[in-house]
């Protein structure tokens, strides 16, 4: 009889152990993940419509002495500039309720001039300009793409916008996961560009 009692008690203890163990496993399943972060960064990439004017101005482009003429014309064109965060450089470290996200600065990831926007009407030639020939138009067209990248790279507001967008999406994700498991995560950012580190308690700074 004692054996039966012992067996029953052992079963009860085992049952209790199994029941407790399963709970811990389930809780570990949800926490902010690196692969999700990378996906978010890829989706945070912005395709920006970029309409631009390339200005061509060459002094004394033709003629001689008093008959010298400048060549001046503008070209209006459009394209798409892709701005975002390099997802491969994004990293995450979760320690209790502190989520440290390492993030690079937003950059120009791509740039493409829409050739269909370059028509005869796209060229505005100044009144007293030297003649603009096909070769000058081709030269200007080739410069257009390079100028578009340059213009977008110098557009700090556009880059800041892309950076902020990626950070907001990442932070929102962390907070949502936290709410789901009943945790209040604090996000700490490490910026790869200048290696500065800052605490962010209320959102993006």
């Amino acid at each position, binding site marked *: 009889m004692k054996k039966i009692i012992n067996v029953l008690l052992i*079963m009860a203890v085992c049952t209790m152990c199994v029941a407790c163990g399963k709970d811990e496993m389930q809780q570990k399943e949800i926490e902010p993940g690196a692969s999700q972060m990378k996906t978010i960064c890829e989706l945070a990439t912005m395709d920006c*419509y970029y309409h631009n004017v390339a200005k061509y101005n060459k002094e004394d482009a033709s003629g001689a002495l008093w008959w010298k003429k400048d060549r001046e014309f*503008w070209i209006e064109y459009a394209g798409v500039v892709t701005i975002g965060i390099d997802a491969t450089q994004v990293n995450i470290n979760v320690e209790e309720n502190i989520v440290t996200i390492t993030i690079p600065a937003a950059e120009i990831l791509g740039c493409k001039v829409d050739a269909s926007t370059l028509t005869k009407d796209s060229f505005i030639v100044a009144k007293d300009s030297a003649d603009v020939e096909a070769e000058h138009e081709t030269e200007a067209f080739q410069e257009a793409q390079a100028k578009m990248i340059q213009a977008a790279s110098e557009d700090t507001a556009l880059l800041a916008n892309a950076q902020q967008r990626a950070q907001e999406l990442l932070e929102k994700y962390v907070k949502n996961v936290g709410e789901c498991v009943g945790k209040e995560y604090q996000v700490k950012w490490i910026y790869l560009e200048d290696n500065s580190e800052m605490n962010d308690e209320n959102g993006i700074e």
Partner: protein
Amino acid sequence: MNDKKGIKGFRTKYLMMIAIAVVILFVVALSVKVVFSGISKKDSPEIITKSTLEKIINISDLSTFEAVYNGIAKVMNEKKPDKVDYYVSYEAKVRAGFDVERVELDVDNDKKVISVTIPEIKITGIDVDIASLDYIFMNDKANESTVSEQAYKKCIEDVENESSSENAIYTLAGQNAKDVITALINPFIEQLDDDYELTVKIEGADNNEKNN
């Protein structure tokens, strides 16, 4: 002797009853736990509810997208409307976006499908930088002190007309909007229940995309 046997028998029965009670208690506790954990697992959809997802996508900051519109306005002579007075180049920013309040969201927990419909993308703002104006005069007489005032108005008119008819602005803003919604919802549901499928579409646009 019989008394001892009786006491021993009573103690054994008593211990056995306690043991059985303990086992029953644990079996009941375990059953309750299994049932509840079953519910909570089955109910991961309970986290994936319309109200939870609506809260997740409530992101007014991320509903606006900026396009760069550096253009050229052509200004005609008032007396001779077929003659160009001057061309003026300008730098402008065009904002396009959608109304977050009007985003429609449906969750079908049986089919495990989340459908999001983003309202029509609209131009929400235009800024022309007056300091960026640059001119090519075709009529030198047009180069007067009042020219910048007139030119600025023409630039605003130009960017308003050009941007509202430029499909690429709407298309790109629409794609960006879809990406934002997907970035907000997908990684989250992926961790809770990756059987769910997200569909995001723009109101009035034919093409919709499955994002999961």
